């Protein structure tokens, strides 16, 4: 602190700069958190508290859990939460299983035709495809499966949505884990190979535990994006398979805005991915930037 004051005394203009940075820090945090906080406090306010400047629960208004109880009491909502959990956890599990294997393959073996680089690009291309292109073929194919009476799959099935979400999020585990596998010193695996361990044993017993953080991060990223996915969900789900975003998009009120309903529903949709984001924030940037930065 003293050193800091000393520096400020020598360069008084630095103080202005520092104050500006602190000011911007507050502005940016407030701007980012405002919509989320607004949704949250509306979900715990009585209607007569909605208008007027009341920001702090207990101090400025009496909070209530009434609207949350109401929301969670609705059968549709409970079913949507269940569906969303199945879809997001199922898709994450599947994408991690496929993605981890592929990532290890890309990191530890050489491929000639197609080359490693081409294969990686192939997996990455998944990331740029607009999902809206798939609305038509997936709907028609799912309808076709229905006419063939294929069990579990087809329209209005959460399992179809598990498969589709795993597909679209496959690039994340592939990118994140390829890099992490490459960062494992090869000597460790070579030593195990000398000791007579098989390829599969090396992968399962040595490589996999070393990339555990990458597995967790990939899992939660896929989970969060699958939780949020809307376009394919509304294409496939008709009644029984409807997840949270579809419920929210359908919740139109005709007379003005029901602030409590908006508050509880948006918090319900935003909260699980938010918690996930906070858990995984360390590797998220690497994953989302397709490995361009280490983050």
């Amino acid at each position, binding site marked *: 602190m003293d050193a800091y004051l000393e520096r400020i005394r020598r360069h008084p203009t630095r103080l202005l700069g520092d104050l500006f940075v602190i000011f911007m820090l507050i502005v940016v945090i407030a701007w980012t958190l405002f919509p989320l906080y607004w949704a949250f406090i509306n979900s715990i306010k009585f209607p007569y508290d909605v208008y007027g400047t009341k920001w702090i629960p207990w101090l400025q208004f009496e909070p209530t859990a009434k609207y949350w109880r109401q929301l969670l009491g609705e059968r549709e909502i409970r079913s949507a939460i269940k569906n969303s959990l199945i879809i997001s956890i199922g898709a994450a599990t599947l994408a991690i299983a496929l993605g981890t294997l592929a990532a290890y393959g890309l990191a530890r073996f050489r491929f000639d035709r197609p080359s490693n680089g081409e294969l990686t690009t192939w997996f990455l291309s998944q990331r740029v495809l607009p999902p809206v*292109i798939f609305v038509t073929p997936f709907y028609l194919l799912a309808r076709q499966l229905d006419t063939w009476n294929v069990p579990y799959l087809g329209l209005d099935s959460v399992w179809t949505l598990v498969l589709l979400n795993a597909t679209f999020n496959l690039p994340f585990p592939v990118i994140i884990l390829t890099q992490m596998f490459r960062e494992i010193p090869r000597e460790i695996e070579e030593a195990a190979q000398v000791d007579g361990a098989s390829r599969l044993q090396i992968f399962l017993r040595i490589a996999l535990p070393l990339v555990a953080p990458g597995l967790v991060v990939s899992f939660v990223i896929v989970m969060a994006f699958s939780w949020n996915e809307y376009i394919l969900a509304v294409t496939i789900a008709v009644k029984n398979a409807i997840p949270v975003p579809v419920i929210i998009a359908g919740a139109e009120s005709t007379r003005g805005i029901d602030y409590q309903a908006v508050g509880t529903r948006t918090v319900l949709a935003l909260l699980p991915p938010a918690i996930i984001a906070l858990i995984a*924030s360390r590797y998220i940037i690497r994953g989302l930037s397709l490995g361009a930065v280490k983050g």
Partner: protein
Amino acid sequence: MSETTAPDSIGSTLGAPNTARASRKRDRTRWYFIGPAIIWILLFTLFPLLYAIRTSFYAFRSGKMLRWVGFDNYRNLWEDEALRSDLQRTIVYVTVVVVVEMVLGFLLALLFNRQMRGVSSLRTIMVLPLFASPIALGYLGKTIFYEIDGPVNRAIEALGGNGIPWLSDPTWAFVAIMIVDIWQWTPFVFLVSLAGLQALPQDITEAAEVDGASALQRLFSITLPLMAPILWLILLLRTIDAFKVVDIVISMTLGGPGRATELYGFYVFRTARRFFNYGSAAAQGYLLLVIVMILVSLLWGRIRNLYEHDVEAR
């Protein structure tokens, strides 16, 4: 940074590079690792895409396939006035949001690229918007931009201005959905740029500082050239994703008022889901895919060149 190995230096057998060639022929193990994911993508991405090509050559009426119409669905793209104006609107939307997000995000990254308490919590907080459900955000946007007594208009009125007709005026509604996009994705530019800035070699900038280069000179002749590949990549990802936007429009404005916020993705979505015209929707989807592919091929070359240049320079 721990040691990374380039793929071409990895033999197919870890311990014995000399016998690699001999064993590679027999080594099927690698395909067991990568095979499932490849088959998966063939099945769930390539096959649906090919199926959509077939669909795009058929006429549909209320969801039923009627007959083969050849290139009619594609020809209709050309003559569809609504599609053309939606595409133009989308290009305006993409340009504005991407430019604002890139400039704002990068400037913030420059500002907060320093040792300071609070910056790490800022980074954590900035992750939140990236994972926010766009459907929920649009829905929330409706209340935040609500014209009578919504928080934004109340703040404007408290400052002595007049409330803005956010959702009933065509221009303002367009601005409102752009604000939601900017809120959600500026943090992405910020976080990736900041990570990139922190990975830059410090000694170069310090040397330039010693040599008396001004902050602006250092920015333009050192920081920006070094950051270029990452910035191009951010630009590519943001442009593609902005072209794909559907969710925010669906839950916030449904394309209205009039057609003021009808973006191209929404248009395609509605052709399929509302009018059940799958043939046209498939053709419209392919147009979007072509746009995305052009963007990727234009910018990917740039990113790759810059990466290679980077390697040579070192």
